[in-house]
């Protein structure tokens, strides 16, 4: 039990600054609890997104002491509380108010990606057969809770603001889930290369480090996609096959 000083970034559309609040931190509290407590005690208009409070919905992303994290999964006791705690909104998205940012870019970018297109059913009753090992590859990517923390740390978006040419790690994970889905027959490689900017990724792995779902974004999603793009467009033999209408196996 201790009174702890929280510095929360408050303001509208990027205009604002830190405001300090002191609140009591008790055993087991996570940062989101502290924010709620501050809301209830002194700042009812403090804007913050959350839903599940259990790391399942990906709503409460923020930067805590400079580190991108889910507020609901960050225990206060893991932070150096005597130094105070700083909470800021994600930096790679347009600011709306206090801890809330405009993440609509992610929804727009997702909509461009060609949807799932299954092969014909395997059985007369319209169902498919897939082995557990085969589904597990794509299941890793389907764990994504769309917290956008990976988008937030990727320098291509954060520093270079290439939102128009680069869909970001989250959407590479989404593309990988589709491309590696055992039933999918769609081809997204040209889009990945030309429109989605997979070439901009220089494998810094910052995205993997922050993913709260521990998805190995770079190694398991992005690198294999890059390899497929290379095989399809820069490998002369594969190019020939493509010309003949051969699709990915």
């Amino acid at each position, binding site marked *: 039990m201790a009174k702890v000083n929280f510095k929360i970034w408050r303001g509208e559309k990027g205009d604002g600054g830190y405001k300090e609040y002191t609140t009591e931190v008790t055993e087991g509290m*996570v940062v989101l609890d502290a924010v709620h407590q501050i809301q*209830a005690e002194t700042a009812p*208009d403090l804007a913050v997104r959350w*839903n599940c409070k259990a*790391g*399942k919905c990906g709503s409460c992303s923020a930067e805590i002491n400079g580190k991108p994290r889910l507020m609901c999964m960050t225990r206060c006791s893991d932070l150096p509380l005597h130094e105070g705690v700083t909470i800021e909104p994600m930096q790679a998205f347009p600011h709306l*108010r206090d801890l809330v940012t405009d993440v609509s870019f992610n929804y727009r970018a997702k909509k461009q990606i060609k949807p799932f297109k299954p092969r014909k059913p395997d059985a007369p009753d319209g169902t498919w057969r897939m082995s557990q090992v085969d589904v597990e590859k794509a*299941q890793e990517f389907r764990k994504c809770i769309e917290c956008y923390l990976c988008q937030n740390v990727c320098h291509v978006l954060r520093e270079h603001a290439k939102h128009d040419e680069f869909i970001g790690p989250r959407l590479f994970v989404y593309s990988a889930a589709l491309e590696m889905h055992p039933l999918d027959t769609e081809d997204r490689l040209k889009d990945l290369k030309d429109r989605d900017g997979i070439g901009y990724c220089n494998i810094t792995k910052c995205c993997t480090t922050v993913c709260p779902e521990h998805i190995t974004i770079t190694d398991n999603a992005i690198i294999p996609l890059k390899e497929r793009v290379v095989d399809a467009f820069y490998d002369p033999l594969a190019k020939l096959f493509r010309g003949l209408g051969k699709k990915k196996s």
Partner: protein
Amino acid sequence: MASYKTLEFDVLVIGAGGAGLRAAIEASAAGAKVGVVSKSLLGKAHTVMAEGGVAASIGNVDDRDNWRVHFSDTMRGGQYLNNPRMAEIHAKEAPARVLELEAWGALFDRTKDGRILQRNFGGHKFPRLAHVGDRTGLEMIRTLQDHAIHKQIDFHMECTVVTLLKHDGRVTGAFGYYREHGQFVVIRANAIVLATGGIGKSFSITSNSWEYTADGHALAYRAGADLMDMEFVQFHPTGMVWPPSVRGILVTEGVRGEGGVLRNSQGKRFMFDDIPDLYKNQTAKDEEEGWRYVTGDKDANRPPELLTRDHVARCINREVKEGRGSPHGGVYLDIAWIKEKIPNAQEHIKKKLPSMYHQFKELAGVDITTEAMEVGPTCHYVMGGVRVDAETQMSTVPGLFAAGECAAGLHGANRLGGNSLSDLLVFGKRAGEHAAAFALGQTGPFPDANAQVADAAAWAEEPFARDQNGDNPFRVQHDLQAMMHAKVGIVRIDSEMREALDDLKSLGERSLAAPVSGNRDFNPGWHTAMDMRNMLTVAEAVTLAAVERQESRGAHFRDDFPAKDPEAAKFNIVLRQGSDGAMQVVRTPVVARTDEQDAVIKEMG
């Protein structure tokens, strides 16, 4: 008059959880122009949190399963207060709805021969829950979301509806605001599907999020629709109890489905002590038989940990009350013990229950592969909701439909785990289909609604005009939760519930006076002030219905009437607004079962 934006659709779906998305997809496929609004961002609705699985008698793991068994399990679980027609439709259509998800990209866990794997769950006779580890809801909402965004559906995220508009007795639209900037919006539509989920935020220990302020229930009630079965609020037996800040967060029933057992402080598996008559010949005689059941022995009966939720929750309550609880007021849930039975138990647990493993590791510092968890009941689900027609999901107000958790009928007095996700799919689809048909059958321009809109806007702006009085909406909400939990919680008694009704009056007065600071831009204090009206209305409905049902059945337990009353098995309790504005409580006969339905129930024993 306040400025507002106007949108027009054939069908407006309020809510973007499983029920809302499924309804929108269907209405759009039927040729209707569809809009969807939701309080949160797309993909964040409660459905995302569901863990254990979706119930459908596909029969992949045990081919003795079929719709008849699922139907009779659902009826038994609901203590026969269910609408039997809904239970039948649900049991028959759930398999097709789940398989359809696979065609849209969902990747369920597999059986050895490559089909959808199904797991055991409380109250289901056979392994019936299709699942993806313990994140089935995420798989389901993402599949529906990613499918729906390519269907010409107009999504308005972070947009909250506060009032429905009506004309000549039918709905003609809705009034709401965008959370981001507080701008008002009028949405005209000839049919509306409510898919707003539950009411769990009215209790202090809950697995539900800020969204569950009972909006759909209250919107329907104020629009003149009937609410039904509101006394049945499900307390899930296993929520986290420690540390305090995570109290209430759900521990999936899947833990017990995988072999987890409940013990008291004396190390005793107390669930064997009290097995209800209705389930006597479906329950394991000893621990050994229980273990055989969870490992797939078809001749074994289920362990008592997998009895229905209402019963397990009350047994836990009893252990704690009688002094055999764990240090923080729960009991122990132990999955680690399976290492006595299988090799690689630690890996097995992590694989089958990955998010439970992380949840305890990260939030409580407990490693569930080696230690027992401390658990206790948490408010989880409401069986009650908008009374709807079984075939179409239309409420008693023309053009107003409801599906998913905000609708009543399927679950009766108690819902079986896994029957909600299937409910969303089956009845979401039906609501979408019939809402589209209704809307496309309407002709002519939308009738004038200016007066209703002006009233709604004035109401929404009013909280900013209140004088500072030291109170705020969060405090009122907090006190409402504590009061409901204490007085209308798991164990109820007439005198306390009557106090609750008085308390609701004073909380109502406080909520009308609690001031709001700041402006209309993304202001949670203001949003909470508006949500309070819904929470208070529905808390009153729950309390009045609970006073009226003078017996104990399913999720409703009365200390002063601890037994079931055969007479009370004959009616459901309906709540509707009287012409004087007061809430009326009406007993209506339970929908009669057909001879065929009775025969199925009898056959299943």
